[in-house]
């Protein structure tokens, strides 16, 4: 019920709306709950509304911690979970 997914904004539309894209599927969503969204941004979409923005840098950081796992597996623990 709370499921929401990140999708890229491909077009800003009238009435505080935008067209988002996810792997070739496009859909209109409302931007009424987010501010200063630009084309190219990733927003988090829930029941037809963007409810937040996805922060690419933070995503990259999280993925980086996963990448560290190989090292961690080797023995010593390098991984520090990020405290935002």
């Amino acid at each position, binding site marked *: 019920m709370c499921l929401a997914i990140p999708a890229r904004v491909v077009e800003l539309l009238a009435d505080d709306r935008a067209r988002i894209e996810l792997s*070739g*599927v496009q859909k209109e969503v409302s931007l009424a709950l987010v501010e200063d969204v630009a084309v190219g941004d990733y927003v988090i979409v829930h029941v037809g509304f963007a409810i937040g923005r996805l922060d690419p840098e933070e995503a990259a950081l999280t993925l980086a911690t996963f990448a560290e796992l190989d090292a961690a597996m080797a023995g010593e623990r390098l991984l520090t979970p990020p405290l935002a």
Partner: protein
Amino acid sequence: MSYTRPLDLKHGRVDLSHGSGGRAMAQLIHDLFVRHFDNDYLRAQNDGACFPLPAGTGRMVMATDSHVVSPLFFPGGDIGCLSVHGTINDVAMAGGKPLYLAAGFILEEGFPLADLQRIVVSMAEAAREADVPIVTGDTKVVEQGKGDGVFITTTGIGVVPDGILLDPRRIQPGDRILVSGYLGDHGVAIMSLRENLSFDTAIKSDTAAIHGLAADMLAAVPGLRALRDPTRGGLAAVLNEFASAAGCGIVIREKAVPVRDEVAAACELLGLDPLYVANEGKLVAVCPAEDAEHLLDVMRSHPQGRDAAIIGEAIVDPNGFVQMETTFGGRRMVDWLTGEQLPRIC
């Protein structure tokens, strides 16, 4: 006195006289159905079609499906060709070479004749392409508000070659499960048009008659255990039907199940699982393990099986559970669909 005013196929609409057994009905049948379906059986204008059978026919198969898809026209097809493909496929899934189709139309008063013609032409093309003529039919008209444009029930019959015995009860632990291609295209194409869901995608329905593919497969592996087209309820429904008929379990590997990115994305957006989404031009096959690779080769060399894959196998499990190894590395059940997924997809 030979002149008859032609049907107004541009602006005309179905009215109650088209279903009342008079000349208006006869004209509709003649000018639309008989004209486009175009074969001697229909031209005979009997209430049933009489035909010879290929010599030596010992077993036959009959299958029927009512089609109520909404909307009637969708990317990749319409209710017309769908109703031809759907039934041909059911005949083929029983191992039959489809021979003849019957079609029953339930028309709603007010339905535009131009749309009806589009549908009939599409059926005729589908039947011609599949080389399975529509040899008999029936037309009824219901008052406005008692139907939904047009419903089409098709019934097909076919002959089953000797030596073929498709029956999911024959599935045994160790048997391999194959699918003929990408799953979920039809369901997603329909959903993309639903008012409440509407989204844009290039996905088209996969509606197609796949008796040719099935025939190739049966010729190559006559020992095929079972074939089924994963329509309503999707792959999950077929696997559960197979497992419970066979009294064994099934394990599939998520990674091996072919799903297009766009279909996965549409499902993600709508909170659906592609395993439950309908197909109209795919099949699921079960064969002994030793035949699996050969069968896969045969499938892949047919245009309709290009993306075929071995997705799993039958296992010993008296509960008849269907399980899946997830891409993530865990294992979970793939149960029957519960409640409505989306109605009126076929």
